[in-house]
Every structure is written in C-alpha cells, then in structure tokens.
C-alpha cells in the first residue's frame, strides 16, 4: 500500500531567513489584538457581564420575531438586549445585561430574568424556554478574576516547566509564543465581537496546553541537534530542526483539526464558540511554534554550550587529579 506523505521527505525550507519580517508581523498582530480588545472591548457573555440569558423556541413560527423581541425586551428598561438566532431560525438567544447599579445587588439578575421570560410568554403563544442562565454581578466578577488568574497561572506554569526541562531561553520562547496565541485569540473575539464566555476561557486554556505540543516537539529536536552538531551556526540548526519535525507538526495539527471540524460544523450551537476558539488557536499555535518559538532562541543567545554541562570547581580538580594520575608511571597489572 502506498502511504500518504503530506510533507515530502527532506524538506529544506529556509524558515529562519524570514524571521525578522515574520516577527514584526507577529508583534503587529499582537499589538492590533490588544488594541481591538482595548477599543472595541470583548463582547462579554452572561458569565462575565452578569445578567440574564434565555434561549427560547417559537414552536408555532418558522422564523422568530427577532426585531420585535428586541424592542419589547428593551421596553423593560434594562438596556438594549442582544437578540440573535441560535442554531435554528425559530430559536433565539436573548441576553439582557445587568444594569451597572444592580451589579452589587444580590438577586437583581434573577429578578430581571424572571421578568424577561414572563414578558415573552405573555406576548407569544407556543414559546418554550430551552435554557435560562442568570448570573449576578458578584458571581460574574468572581468569574472574571478567576479567569484572569487561571490564564496567567497556566502560562507561567507551563513556561516554568519548559524552563526546568530545557533552558531559560526556551521557557521565555514558549511563554512568548503562548502570549502570542492567547493575544490573537482574544483579538479575534474582540474584532468580530463574538460572545466571550467561560467556555472561551476553557478553550484558551486548552490552546495553551495543545499549542505547546508543537513547540515542545521543535524544542526537543533543537536540543537534540544542539548536542549533535556542536559547530553548526544556530540559524542553520534551527532550520534543520524545524524541517526535520515539519511532518510531525503538520500531522499532529491535522489530526486535531479533522477531529474538531465536525464538531464545529454539526455540533451543538452552544459549543460553537469553544470549538471555534480552539480551532483558531490550533492554526495560530502551529505558526507560533515555527516562527516565534524557534527564532526567539537566536535573540536570546542559545548556544551548544547550553546543554553541555559546565565544569564545576570539583570537576576541574578531578580532571587535574586524573591527568596527574595518568602522568605517573602505570603500576604493573597483577
């Protein structure tokens, strides 16, 4: 049987030649992402903004009256609701933000939720509530701070691990690549104003874990080659390592992608954001492993010596003692 070879054997692509332009592009993308997050803001879902989210099916209609709903729910006086189709034309998701002054009042979110449901059920027949999420301002605040903490700890935790297993330069490189991946994912959610919920945090943490897989594979090979080719210039060695592991990098990303795509296309509507974030993170992560995590090692000054144990004082003395011992006339074997 002829086996499939997605990446031809012995590729020799000069990835590192373009390291500066790609690095500049990456930096610009990171800056643009944060600018988007800063100016546009993230479209916080009910988890982080607090308030009320209700998903309703209009059983007697083919098409839910989205515009009318927006108006009538706005009439309750809690600000402009977000009303959108959710998975099917007659299913809508309605999100009412929590008024700022109500953020600290316990039970306020719950009250708004009950009002919204009662209003819609009084105006339309055959409406069933599929899902109803109410989050108070206090809980939403906790979710926000927990999310930031979890992301920061996860990035630092894995970077520490890489530092321990490799060298500090590798830890910094991995951390930078992760920062890039997380920034771009956030940027995407800001630019397209996709709903940013707890699930997206879960997705980003998964990205932190999985985008690092590729980085580790490349780093592992760099370390191996650093020990093997002591005299090779670093850019050349990095290119060699990336090329040698290219088939792996492509294949592992591809298996993940083909597993995720059906979930993105046919999966439950409420998982869409999570799967989308992971899929995007997959591409971004593969790119950053090759174009950020590897070249950064040059700038951080990794050398072959990084993996050759340094001689300690004791080693030097031992070596001296040994050479002295050899200088003495060998005692005849008995």
């Amino acid at each position, binding site marked *: 049987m002829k*086996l*499939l*070879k*997605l990446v031809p054997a012995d590729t020799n692509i000069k990835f590192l030649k373009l390291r500066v332009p790609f690095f500049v592009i990456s930096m610009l993308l990171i800056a643009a992402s944060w600018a988007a997050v800063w100016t546009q803001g993230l479209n916080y879902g009910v988890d982080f903004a607090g308030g009320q989210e209700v998903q309703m099916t209009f059983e007697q209609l083919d098409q839910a009256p989205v515009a009318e709903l927006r108006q009538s729910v706005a009439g309750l006086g809690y600000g402009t609701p977000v009303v959108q189709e959710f998975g099917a034309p007659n299913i809508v998701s309605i999100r009412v933000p929590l008024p700022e002054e109500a953020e600290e009042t*316990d039970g306020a979110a*719950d009250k708004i939720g009950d009002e919204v449901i009662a209003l819609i059920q009084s105006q339309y027949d055959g409406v*069933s*509530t*599929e*899902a*109803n*999420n*109410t989050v*108070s301002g*206090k*809980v939403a605040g906790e*979710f926000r701070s*927990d999310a930031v*903490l*979890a992301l920061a700890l*996860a990035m630092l*935790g*894995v970077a520490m*691990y*890489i530092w321990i*297993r490799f060298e500090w330069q590798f830890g910094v490189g991995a951390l930078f690549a992760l920062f890039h991946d997380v920034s771009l994912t956030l940027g995407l959610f800001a630019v397209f104003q996709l709903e940013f919920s*707890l*699930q997206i*945090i*879960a997705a980003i*943490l*998964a990205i*932190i*874990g*999985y985008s*690092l*897989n590729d980085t*580790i*594979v490349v780093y*592992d090979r760099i370390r*191996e080659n650093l020990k093997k080719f002591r005299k090779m210039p670093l850019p050349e060695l990095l290119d060699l390592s990336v090329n*040698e592991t290219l088939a*792996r990098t492509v*294949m*592992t990303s*591809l*298996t*993940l992608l*083909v*597993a*995720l795509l*059906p*979930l993105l296309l*046919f*999966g*439950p509507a*409420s*998982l869409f954001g*999570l*799967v989308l974030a992971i899929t995007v993170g997959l591409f971004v992560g593969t790119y950053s492993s090759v174009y950020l995590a590897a070249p950064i090692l040059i700038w951080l000054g990794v050398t072959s010596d990084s993996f050759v144990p340094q001689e300690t004082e004791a080693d030097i003395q031992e070596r001296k003692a040994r050479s002295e011992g050899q200088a003495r006339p060998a005692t005849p074997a008995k």
Partner: protein
Amino acid sequence: MLDFPLWKKIMLWVVTLTAGLMALPSLVGAGGGDWPDALPEPTVNLGLDLAGGSHLLLEAEADAVGAQRLQNMEEAVRQAMRNAEPRIRIGDISTADGELSFMLSEASDIDRARGLLEPMMQGQNLVREWDLSVRDGQRMVLKPTDSGTENAINDAMESATEVVRRRIDELGTREPTIIRQGETRIVVQVPGLDDPEALKELLGQTAQLEFKLVDQNALPTNVQAGIAPPGSQIFPYASGTDFEGQSIAVRRLGGIRGDRLTGATAGVDPQTNENVVNIQFDVQGGTRFCTLTRQNVNKPFAIILDEEVLSAPNINEPICGGSAQISGSFNADSANNLAISLRSGALPVPLTVIEERTVSAELGADSIQRGLLAMLIGSLAVIVLMIATYGRFGIYATIALVLNVLMLLGIMAFANSTLTLPGIAGFVLTIGAAVDANVLINERIREERKRGRKVISAVENGYKEASRAIYDANITNFISACLLGFFGSGPIRGFAVVLIIGLFTSVFTALPLTRMWVAGWLRKTRPNDINV
C-alpha cells in the same frame, strides 16, 4: 524491545480491559432489571446541560447571621442583668457597629456584671466567641470574635443546607443535589426541573415566623414616619394584606418565635372561606404560646413572617390547645408554600439566588445527539488519516484510540464523574490529540529508517526518542488542565475532567499498548522492511 515479558502483557491487558469494561454500562444503559449482577453498574453522570434541569447557586447574607447573634445576645444580657440578685440596672443599649454595648447605671456594679457576663462569652469547645471590655469606666462592650462569628455562620449554613434539602424533598423532585460551597453558598441542582420558579419561591422564603405584642402606646404618626418608641420596632404590613403600605410598631421583647412547630398544613377557614395555614406547636412552644396569650387577653398581637406583618388580631381568649391559625391574604399556592416552609423549619439566614442555569431536557438530548454525531465523524476522519499515513502502524494507533475512548469513559463512570456539554468537546479534543503520540513515534521511526537503521533498531529508537517530547507535552497539558479544573465551575470543570483523564489514558494506550502490539508483530514476522 521485542522482549515483552508475559506478566507485563497480562498486566497491560488487565488494565485496558478492566477500564474498558467499566464503560459498558454507560454505553448500553445499565440499571435495568435484566442487567447481570456480575457486571459493573456505575454509569457516567450526565451534567445538567445534557440531562436538562436546574442549577441554582444560593448565597446567604452573612451579615444577617451577625445581626441575629447580636440580638440574641442582647436578650440574654437583659435577662441575666434582670435576674441578678440584686438586679443590675442597665440602659442605653446599642447594637450599632457590629457590637453590643450598654451603660451600667451604677459603676460599682461593674465586677458583678463582669462575673455574670464572662461565662456567656465562651462558646462550645472553649472557643472564645465574644470579647468583653469596658469603655469610659461604665460602658460594657461585647464584641463578637472572628472565630465566634465564623462558628455562627458555619452553624447557620449547616442548618440552612438541611432546611433547603427538606424543602426540596417536599416538592417531590428526583435526586436533587444540595451541597454547601465555600463559606456562605449552597449549590442546588435538580435534574429534570424545567421551570424553577416554584423552587425559587420556596427557597426565597426565610419563613421566620414571630408572634409579637403590638405597642399600643406608639403614636400612629411616628409609626408611619418610621420612628419607633423605645423598646419597640416597626414592621410593614406584607403586600396583599388589607393594610398594605402601612406599618405597625411591636414590642421588641416578650414575643415568641414560631420555630417550635410539629406541623403546618394549608387549609381553608370554613367561616371566612379564606386560605389559611394551621400550625401545631410542640409541647414547649404550646405552653409559651398559651402563657403569652393568657397574659395579654384583649390586646392585639402581630403575626410576623420574614419581617412583614401578616395580621395583627386581637387576643380574645387564651389559646392553649397547642395549635393556631395564620391568615393573611394567601392564595392556595402561597398558603401551601408557607406550610411547606414552616414544616421544614425556618432558614436561619436569608438566601438569594446569585446564579441560575436551567436547560430543558429536549435541548440536552439534542446536544448529546449532535455531540455524538460530531464525535463519530471526527473519529472516523482521524482513523482514515492515520491509516492512510502510517499503514499498519496507523491501524495500531486506531485500535489504541478506540480503547482510549472506552477507558476514558470507563474511568469516568468508575469515578462517578459528570459528563457535561464542554466535556463532549473534551472527548473530541482528546481523540484528536491522543494520536499525536503515535504520530510522533511513527515519524521518528520513518526518520530512523531513512538514516539507515535496521527495522528493529529503528522502531526501538522511534519509541525511545519520541517519548521524551510526548511526556513533556502531556505534562504541560496536564498543568493547564488542572488550573482549568481548579478555577472552572460546573460544566467547565467537566471539560477539565475529561481532558485530565484523557491525558493519562492516551499516554497509556499510545505508548505501552501499541509498543506491545508492534513488538509482537515484529517478533512473529521479522520483516526486513516496514512500510511506515
């Protein structure tokens, strides 16, 4: 590498099959009558987002516990001072700023007062619950200690959880989960409950029933302005009652609390045709109620529920039968709710819903169906890709993948874990990432072969050299998944659980298991070349 001792083989298969077998009940739906006893029974729990149901997060107002405690202490202090021989006169009692303070009329009483109060400062297990100090020579100050407050909140939360459980049981819902979370929170999960309104109403009622004497000396204008005469407090009438919008002044002390009940039932008063709640006191409560009513015949007393007055009837005659009737413009539902609440006991502290998530059973079933379909297509795509790329080694990876999913499901069932909607995404992610290890190994074998190594040595090196990166990658995944599990809540934690268990099972099936199969095949056929 070809030597796989028999014990190792047996061990690998025993682990695989045991964990895989645990998945069986979840797959075919165990628990039915004809399920053989010998087979394992635990199945994976479905989270509320898949099974449908209601999740409520309740928070207690911890401040209310402190306030109640101060009030109780005030009564105890008054009584202790009154009963002292000779009586110790006190005045200017204040419970402001979270402390109880009062003036002694005679500064010389200070040592006697201290002697009486000192034993009251100690809680159970010799924990000091109050600090006693003297200010300006004549003012005694009682301040709750941190550990005292903590104990009080702890006790209140424990009994609140119990009361919540009893109330939900009264609703007759199936298998509710009621867990105390953190210091002041209670999680309530009721599978299959689509409309939690009734539940929320039931839990929103503290059901603190009090009978207090009306202060007839209070000036009506002062009462409406909210100014209470000394020794009295003002309560508003409950909405829906005849005097809605008005308030009434009642004496702070000398009333009784309706917490000594043996029963409460909703009914209709045959004379007025009004919805009422009939309550039965226990012996002690009945005696106290009898005394209160006998001493105050022809005076009005207020029936107060959760700081709102239901009614303030006149006491026409002593009520000594141990039962009483409460009316207050109830409808049939609210009378029934109150009866349930009174039966299950008052909540020691008010609870508010701070998070609610409800999913209908239909939506849950739809999610499962779509999730499973996507998982199936995804798995097939991964399998096709692996076999097309690695041939025989891809088939080994495929078998490992299937066993991996079974083991993951089996371990989740055994550990009684909950599968949530994000958990399904976790399954898919695990499927896509589990074969990564095989990809790394197989690519390495390809590379070693290309460098001219013999088959066996290439395979051996492939496993050895690839496992370093495999372990590193899985450990970093483990770190971030653990943080997710730690900080995430509910459904998100379900995602982390699947990822974490999946990391272990996938390393197990991708490394030792496929290695055993490859070794077995190499030993049997001793090929000169391998197609990888």
